[in-house]
């Protein structure tokens, strides 16, 4: 599965960049993330809980940042093992560009699954990966700039959304 999208973020590029490298932001943005520890250099150990179609599983694995071009682009990738449920892996290539209103974040996401999730959930896996990616970047955008003005959608409200724009406020941006 592959998909691409762009988002306009109302924050300067350096703020966005710092947010990407922040473990706390990462933890809050990865849907279903129960814990995340480690560092940019060493990579993160993560525990993520997800339900794909009929299969629900807790994935343990690593999240890594690579191909880092300071302030400009990187790749975030992860691979998780869910025991009998199978495994999932994927990543996103992200590029930041300054714009008039802030920063344009372009990303290309790829994801694949294996084992029981693939065997039982293949029909829904594309839509599922799309939804997860969308959720990740929505949360990321909110973390950096606060939510858009319209009321939150059901999915956003249901998610354990962090405080609006908290990263930006935290660092005084």
């Amino acid at each position, binding site marked *: 599965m592959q998909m691409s999208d762009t988002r306009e973020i109302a924050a300067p590029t350096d703020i966005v960049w710092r947010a990407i490298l922040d473990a706390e932001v990462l933890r809050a943005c990865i849907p279903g993330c129960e814990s995340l520890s480690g560092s940019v250099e060493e990579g993160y150990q993560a525990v993520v809980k997800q339900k794909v179609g009929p299969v629900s599983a807790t994935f343990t694995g690593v999240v890594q940042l690579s191909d880092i071009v300071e302030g400009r682009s990187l790749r975030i990738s992860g691979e998780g093992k869910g025991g009998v449920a199978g495994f999932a892996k994927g990543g996103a290539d992200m590029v930041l560009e300054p714009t008039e209103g802030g920063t344009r974040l372009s990303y290309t996401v790829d994801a694949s699954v294996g*084992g*029981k999730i*693939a*065997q039982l959930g*293949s029909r829904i896996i594309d839509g599922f990966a799309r939804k997860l990616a969308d959720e990740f970047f929505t949360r990321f955008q909110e973390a950096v700039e606060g939510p858009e003005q319209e009321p939150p959608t059901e999915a956003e409200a249901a998610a354990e959304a962090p405080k609006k724009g908290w990263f930006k406020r935290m660092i005084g941006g």
Partner: protein
Amino acid sequence: MPKDGGIGASTKRREDVRFLTGKGRYTDDINIRGQLYAHFIRSQVAHGTIRKIDTRDAEAMPGVVKVFTSADFTGVGGIPTGWQVTSRDGQPMLEPKHPVLAEGKVRHVGDPIAVVVAETLEQARDAAEAVEIDIDELPAVMDMKAAIQGGPLVHDEIGSNLCYDWGFVEENKAAVDEAFRNAAHVTTLELVNNRLVANPMEPRVAVGDYEDHSGQHTLYTTSQNPHVIRLLMGAFVLSIPEHKLRVVAPDVGGGFGSKIYHYAEEAFVTKAAQILKRPVKWTSSRSEAFMSDAQGRDHVTRVELALDADHNFTALRCETYANMGAYLSTFAPCIPTWLHGTLLAGNYKTPLVYTNVKAVFTNTVPVDAYRGAGRPEATFQLERVIDKAARELGVSPVELRRKNFIQPDQFPYQTPVAVVYDTGNYQATLDKLLELSDHAGFEARAAESKARGKLRGFGLAHYIEACGIAPSNLVGQLGARAGLYESATVRVNATGSITVFTGSHSHGQGHETTFAQVISEMIGIDASQVEIVHGDTSNTPMGMGTYGSRSLAVGGSAMVKATNKIINKAKKIAAHLMEASEADIELKDGKFTVAGTDKEKSWVDITLAAYVPHNYPLESMEPGLEETAFYDPSNFTYPAGAYGCEVEVDPETGKVTICSFTAADDFGNVVNPMIVEGQVHGGLAQGIGQAMLENCVFDENGQLLSGSFMDYAMPRADDVPFYSVDHSCATPCTHNPLGVKGCGEAGAIGSPPAVVNAVIDALHRGGFTHVTHIDMPVSPSRVWQAMQG
């Protein structure tokens, strides 16, 4: 009207009483005191190097007795292959090792890596989660052509993914090429024969038991051929002498080929029971079945038909890539070769045929025989290319076939592909089909469909199969590592009832009914006096089991031979008792009479005399009445038929609806018409399933995408029409005593091309003349896309 119970009677199946009342005894119903449960840990990746397997945590968990890995099977042979094919260059096929549990590498999703054996199944499953397995995933090779053009190696040690490169008939190759150069017209078609999952209703089960004091092993397993499993597993895998190994295949809930093969799980439970000194049971889940039962078909083919100016077929040339999957299943090599290439003459007098088959290893579940096995693939390409040729030439597909049929007076007919058809009448089945399907009324029905905005089409397909496998000396020359005779012991009991021990195996075919009908007919006693026993190597003579529509033709013939021995001996006893010449003794309706006299002895008088031999010619004859016979056929049998399908295509959606399906089969003589009809119905459902719905799909990484009934579409009652089935155009087989040909696979062989031909016909009638082929399954999206060009 045949008498109730003899040959020709539609006797109700006696086995159905237990099946329909829940009294069947299947392998999973067998539970042995002290039994442990095995749970297989299977690969989640299609290809990878096993770095580490750590079982310590799992072995410390509650109820766990042992966690097995390949290290526990170092002294054990690999799963053997029962057929060796020779490549065009004279080299034997590549035959990689197939370990019981993966060694070093995993090669397909579902490849077994480790097994947890515990007191309960739940404990085994829980502990499986604690087994730490570290696998470095390798790129999977999925596409057959890429696999033999430098793709990653499935088996590093054999250096190639090309198992064999087979040419048939190799000596005809130049002549075939020449015929194509001289052809007035050549029709070419590229097609895929879609991979199928057999999906018998009962998943596989294996229970191993071991008696320490005697060294006796017992394996209860869901098999179509327990003696073959005993031979393969005993001699080649576990080195257990046959007298210390009993294999029992009790009631088996469908096989369709997938339960012919010797599987790793069988060897595992047998060995584990010995190691642990306790019975070990494994029951496949449906999910496991999807990734561990051998699958079917998966051919990619280019077929070319050459015709002269008068539309006579002058040559057929085919090139096929046949997917073997990751390992060679027991009979996998012979399916795309000897069960496929030899059928490419079909019903036609095409003088020259050449086929090249490349068998390829990929990171997929192994492929082997599935209902029809090679013959559906041959029939599909032949009947599709003939249909395409008719369209290109602007002639009727019906008449193009008729023109090229082998004529009734040409039998026995030597085909250019080795086999000799003994009997057949293809004109007769075609005429019967056209009559039964009211072909004359087709145009009116098409007009009526058109008025409703639907496109109606008619598709015809003729098939032939080689059944009743097979002459042992012939298949031996062709690479079989087994004989293919069949056996029967007929035990007449003292009071006249009969127990037949057959080497055949029934897993839905109804042998307990039909075999009893044959004995009833031969001796003239009621069928209820005859019991058919099968499935246990401890009481049946060595037999090769049931597949390839062979049981009545080969197993039935063995039983007839043994029964004739019984009758001959009984006549001798009768002659003695009635003081007459043996030549004057006649047996009719269960009575022995002396020709030209009123002397008479009943069947029971004779059987009792055999076991209470007070007045008996003991000096010249042994007492008792029990005979065994082995029957090795002198030729294959050649069931054939004409199948017609009418469909409606909705041009708005591409949805295909089957309006009618007609089958005119020649099965030779028929013992039980109702059972034959049921066999045809089942075969048609599976053939229509392949044509319309079923498709086993892996993604580019080798993940199984159609791994459950949510994604693998089985035909349901509303997907198939009411069938019109006929078997009156019988030309009895000339070389077996019953004159029977076999009917088990016909439906699955003849129906897929009939369906696809009908869909193409409908589209052409609707003006979509650019559509020359649609690969199966002809799903709405594929049909719609084809219509869009």
